[in-house]
């Protein structure tokens, strides 16, 4: 009698605890969703406002446009000296060069740091790590003088060539971490088969590095696409403007009257970043996490 009562009591307590646990989880989910919505609300509002007539943007905090104005996109596309795809194209040239440069140059350097023993390795590795933290603003003036002596101001070279010289050391570090995790037996067996270092790098390590290369490509795309400072410094010719520079021209030239078209073009500017984020978030998350943790 006493024991069954006890077990019944225990079962009831368990059920109670489980219910309370479920309630707690539910509340947590609600809290997290509410917080996430608050964070994303400005973005959603911008998307919705890009379809509103300008005067409604300043009256409607809600997300559903009461009046659709898809013409914002047409108007924004043609508001500047060049149609907007001209600026998108400029940005894409720079982005493509930067991605290619980072993939090649950073992986070469990473192979040396991860797999080869050479004199001064420790010191060079420390310099490489230190250069990750170096703000571009510190070196921008001499860089500008260098590139202007080369006649490279108002060309895309200052934004592309440095990437082929592995200046974005962050990605070297990312790839070093990744290559260190690959089994060395692969290199050794390739060496026994007579492969030199370049063959090992190109045929063995690079194919296995695909996740790290994908992370590098996606980050380079997003960072170069979003970059404003160096593009502002090196590109002053309005015809060479990239998407961020075009948006800035838009803000300066249009004044208060055409926020709708400006929002529409801002949405266009964020679109590729959002797309890459959706497609590659696994790589992005892993990329950030592995650089933080040794």
């Amino acid at each position, binding site marked *: 009698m006493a024991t069954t009562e006890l077990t019944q009591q225990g079962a009831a307590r368990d059920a109670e605890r489980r219910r309370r646990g479920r309630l707690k989880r539910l509340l*947590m989910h609600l809290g997290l969703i509410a917080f996430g919505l608050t964070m994303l609300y400005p973005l959603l509002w911008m998307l919705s406002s890009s379809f509103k007539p300008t005067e409604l943007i300043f009256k409607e905090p809600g997300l559903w446009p009461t009046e659709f104005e898809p013409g914002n996109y047409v108007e924004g596309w043609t508001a500047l000296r060049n149609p907007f795809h001209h600026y998108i194209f400029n940005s894409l040239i720079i982005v493509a060069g930067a991605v290619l440069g980072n993939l090649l140059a950073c992986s070469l350097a990473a192979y040396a740091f991860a797999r080869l023993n050479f004199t001064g390795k420790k010191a060079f590795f420390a310099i490489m790590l230190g250069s990750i933290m170096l703000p571009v603003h510190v070196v921008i003036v001499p860089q500008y003088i260098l590139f202007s002596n080369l006649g490279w101001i108002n060309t895309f070279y200052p934004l592309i060539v440095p990437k082929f010289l592995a200046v974005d050391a962050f990605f070297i570090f990312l790839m070093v971490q990744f290559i260190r995790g690959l089994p060395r037996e692969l290199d050794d067996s390739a060496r026994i088969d007579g492969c030199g270092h370049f063959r090992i790098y190109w045929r063995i390590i690079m194919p296995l590095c695909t996740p790290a290369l994908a992370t590098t490509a996606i980050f380079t795309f997003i960072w170069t696409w979003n970059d404003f400072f160096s593009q502002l410094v090196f590109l002053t010719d309005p015809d060479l403007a990239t998407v961020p520079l075009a948006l800035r021209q838009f803000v300066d030239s249009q004044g208060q009257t055409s926020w709708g078209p400006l929002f529409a073009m801002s949405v266009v500017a964020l679109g590729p970043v959002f797309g890459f984020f959706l497609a590659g978030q696994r790589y992005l998350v892993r990329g950030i996490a592995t650089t933080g943790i040794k």
Partner: protein
Amino acid sequence: MVSTKPVSAPVAPGDVTARLTRRRGKSVLQKRENRAAYLFLAPWFLGLALITIGPIVASLVLSFTDYSLLESPNWIGFENYERMLDDPRLHNSLRVTFTYVFVSVPFVLALALALAMVLDRGLRGLPFYRSVYYLPSLLGGSVAIAILWKIVFGTNGLVNQVLGLFGFEDLPGWVGHPDYALGTLIILNVWTFGSPMIIFLAGLRQIPHMYYEAAAVDGAGSMRRFFSITLPLLTPIIFFNLILETIKAFQTFSQAFIVSGGTGGPADSTMFYTLYLYLRGFGAFDMGYASALAWFLLMIIAGLTAVNFIASRFWVHYGDD
């Protein structure tokens, strides 16, 4: 080096020659590996010399000149640095930047850690929440988001519209008000807490579960577990994020540039250090002075990082000690 211990005491002559040839053989191999390594590193060396270290040295030299890009530089000694001492706009920009860094970075880290802890509890839908919170980090530095901020915090912007629903009236345009403009940019930085959050999440994953089990057996409550296990074991990650976020905050530029229309206004309240450097160097082509500013920035960041490293000895616990 350290590992080449003397082996057994009696060494046969044959052994010695064998070892010598092996060592010589190794050094040939080593030379070949050196050459291969330097070839692999050649682009990086070139970049280091031309794009990184060269310019650092060059800007030090330029900081002692009055270079303006149009005329050849004249050596003016410490004049630029003396000018910095009584340049009220520079002092203001330092105040603005330090306020921004010291207010926003703690908020970013606290929020990142808090949400990482909540998400680490094994809730369903972790990848979803992680992505939602991470997205602003990717967008935060872009011109489009700066434009959005300018409108959201404008006189008739989203913030005032929402506050209007709660009966607030005659609200200022936050981005246009000298007292609040910096605050809106601080909020923008806090909004991008997602990437340190992901690093925290990865760090939390590495804490062995048995510590918590042992603590639970000993009857430690959740607060006790947080302060005695999670926090100490996470200190290296907190430190890493602190350094990263501090340096990132110091480099804020495009948000301030767009929100203020490239002026650092209203009343220099968003005149970040980097923006001031840009205006001196590329607005006024006062490149000697801008170089001095750049070197000072390097010193500030190196100094802050050094202070962080020294302080870290007192609060960061690495697993091996």
